[in-house]
């Protein structure tokens, strides 16, 4: 039986370079797990999804041999080539096929090899998956659909192996968009996404596939969607992010603490529909907000958060909401360190905001 972990697990989890931790009490029973990396956590979730539901399928380009990031390793051997298979090289085909499969009452877990290559599937996702239920008056739905895709910078990906396209999908009513920050989160959120009765686009931070390591319970568990997590309590300023950017924000929090600034850090986890209340409550306490993401600042999801919080907390804000994000350029190879919303860019914004 799957259990839903609500803020139950994980403290002092082992982590590599980009270290992550959460600050809630640990339930003994749920802590038993080995330290594993993020792709292994995804792999565990997929094993469980296929094991617990005979109508679940996993497919995409090169998933048969384990996928280019190894997330689907061992699945074809274990569950057979009818349930875990390579597709032809065609993202629109993958998405359309997945929608049809899901519409027949299956759990279609489709992989798009890189988020940068999701655009050929855009029409299927935006015009079909997102509107399947609404346009039919709920006669039909494709809620069993989950599209997984690695996103974000890796240090050397250039234009087409680095993008963060989440904002496009957040602009589409009918879709959910989920992005985990760590192995433990990834496993629980992916299982929730797969089992959620709505189509979900699940972006995985590929920079963390190997780098991020933490103890992950071996059993079946789920983490709630549309619930942000306050992963660090603070009083001077609220920082909001998701995915790989959380670890950069954590470093900025540490640096700010040395200057006596107390930051509250929130991982949004589900971008749409997002947990406004948690962010609002935090900003009402701190009076300041910074949002940070890798995607270009203009029209990024940070703009939506900024605007919503300005509406809700106008009188409590001590400073304008700041955004520390990617630049409004295509993702560049040699300039990647300049493009990125780095720890020090965030630190600088924290100081400016606090002393506004």
């Amino acid at each position, binding site marked *: 039986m799957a259990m839903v972990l609500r803020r139950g697990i994980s403290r002092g989890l082992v982590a590599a370079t980009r270290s992550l931790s959460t600050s809630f009490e640990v339930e003994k029973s749920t802590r038993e797990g080995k330290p594993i990396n993020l792709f292994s956590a995804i792999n565990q979730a997929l094993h469980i999804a296929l094991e617990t539901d005979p109508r679940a399928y996993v497919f995409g*380009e*090169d998933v*048969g*041999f*384990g996928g*280019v990031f190894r997330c689907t390793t061992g699945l074809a051997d274990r569950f057979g080539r009818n349930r875990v*298979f*390579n*597709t*032809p*090289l*065609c*993202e*629109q*085909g993958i998405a359309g096929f997945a929608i049809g499969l899901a519409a027949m009452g299956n759990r279609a877990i489709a992989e798009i090899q890189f988020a*940068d*290559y999701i*655009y*050929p599937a855009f029409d299927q996702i935006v015009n079909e998956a997102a509107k399947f239920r609404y346009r039919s008056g709920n006669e039909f739905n494709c809620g069993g659909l989950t599209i997984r895709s690695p996103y974000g910078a890796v240090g*050397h*990906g*250039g*234009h*087409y*192996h680095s993008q963060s396209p989440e904002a496009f999908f957040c602009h589409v009513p009918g879709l959910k968009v989920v992005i985990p920050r760590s192995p433990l989160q990834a496993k629980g959120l992916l299982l929730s996404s797969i089992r959620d009765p709505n189509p979900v686009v699940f972006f995985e931070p590929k920079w963390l596939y190997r780098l991020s390591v933490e103890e992950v319970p071996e059993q079946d568990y789920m983490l709630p969607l549309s619930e942000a997590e306050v992963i660090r309590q603070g009083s001077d300023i609220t920082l909001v992010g998701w995915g790989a950017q959380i670890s950069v924000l954590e470093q900025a929090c540490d640096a700010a603490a040395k200057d006596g600034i107390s930051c509250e850090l929130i991982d949004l986890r589900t971008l749409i529909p997002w947990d406004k209340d948690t962010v609002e409550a935090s900003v009402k306490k701190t009076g300041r907000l910074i949002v940070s993401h890798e995607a270009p*600042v*203009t029209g990024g999801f940070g703009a939506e958060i900024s605007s919503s919080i300005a509406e809700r907390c106008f009188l409590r804000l001590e400073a304008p909401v700041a955004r520390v994000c990617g*630049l*409004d*350029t*295509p993702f*560049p*190879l*040699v*300039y990647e*360190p*300049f*493009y990125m919303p*780095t720890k*020090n*860019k965030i630190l*600088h914004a924290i100081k400016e905001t606090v002393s506004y």
Partner: protein
Amino acid sequence: MALICHARSTAARHFMRGLYASNVIGRRNSPPIPFSSGGSERCFGSARAGESVSPQYDDCRNQVLDFPGGKVAFIPEMRFLSESTGERISCYRVLDDNGQTISGSSFKEVTREVAVKMYRDMITLQVMDTIFYEAQRQGRISFFLTSTGEEAINIASAAALSNEDVVFPQYREPGVLLWRGFTLQEFANQCFGNKSDYGKGRQMPIHYGSRKYNYFTISSPIATQLPQAVGAAYSLKMDRKEACAVTYFGDGGTSEGDFHAALNFAAVTESPVIFFCRNNGWAISTPTEEQFRSDGVVIRGQAYGIRSIRVDGNDALAVYSAVHLAREMAISEARPILIEALTYRVGHHSTSDDSTKYRPADEINHWRTERDPISRYRKWIERNGWWCDDVESEFRSSVRKELLQAIQVAERAQKPPLKELFTDVYDVVPSNLREQEQVLYQTVDKYPGDYPSDVPI
């Protein structure tokens, strides 16, 4: 100069014959298959179960339907087109495994000068692949991908084109650029993303491009270049240029929607474009059986109304001849041509891949040794007395030296200056980027340690 013997007639008839092989199921005299459609009035196979065809339909046999696209004959038998042609479409070849021309083969004569340049460029490509691959392994460049096994496709196709023909590459065709004169230094500059890289260090290694050589800059997304090539070809036609567009792509690329859009657009717009498919058996780990169930790629041309040919991609003379004639037909008849070259991706997909995880080493070795396009071609030029061992070893070592030197120069060169991060997003830098540029300079001033020192600020 011997033109392909009766180019239009012999060669063209040769490959058309393959395509016209019978591909329908159902024998003429077999009784109609019972079909319970509830008494439809249509002529096609409409007899009710157990009934014979009623007399009033007998005329169908002699009737034709005038239909957009031409007359369609009515027939009383219900025949489905077969899913296969039975026998696979044959493959045009000139050189046998021993590098001897197959008797009776029709091919375009190659001058000694061109023949030797072809060989030298194939060797150069091979040396480039070895040395850049090694440089990636040493961590000097971030990524690389070889054309190993596809040298004949790269070089011989380029040799049959003119420099005015515009190229829309996938990524495993650097030989086309090499043939046109791109220097080893220029290749190295791109791979190192230095200030002399025409792409200004913005893209990953191997994403070459050159306006001078009409080689549109490589883009990683698969198959996007195909419909673009059709648009470019249409422009060449409207401008009455003696040139065509050529686009290269892999077997995997043919699964993308863009492939189908491109073929259809090309046929309908009568655009002079050559679709050159490198069917190398694999798309990363996906073998062609999991990519498509048609008889490869060549057969699809016919479905779109495009003249097509399958060639032995490891036979430089066959590739050269096919592209030569394809080009002539594309330009003089304003039509697209599809070429499917059968070959094998001998290397890993890229430096991020280990292909022994998903394919047998025997298979790789077989293609690397027995089917190597370079040694086959070498036998041929050697037999012609145009090449020998001594020339070869001297040439190889001079290419090695030149390349190692180029790599050193490229590695030491500065990166493009920081301001280039903001240029070329639009024709001029807009206000939002000007603002971001200012802020960035301040940040770099404040935290210089966060930024690479080889990017001039």
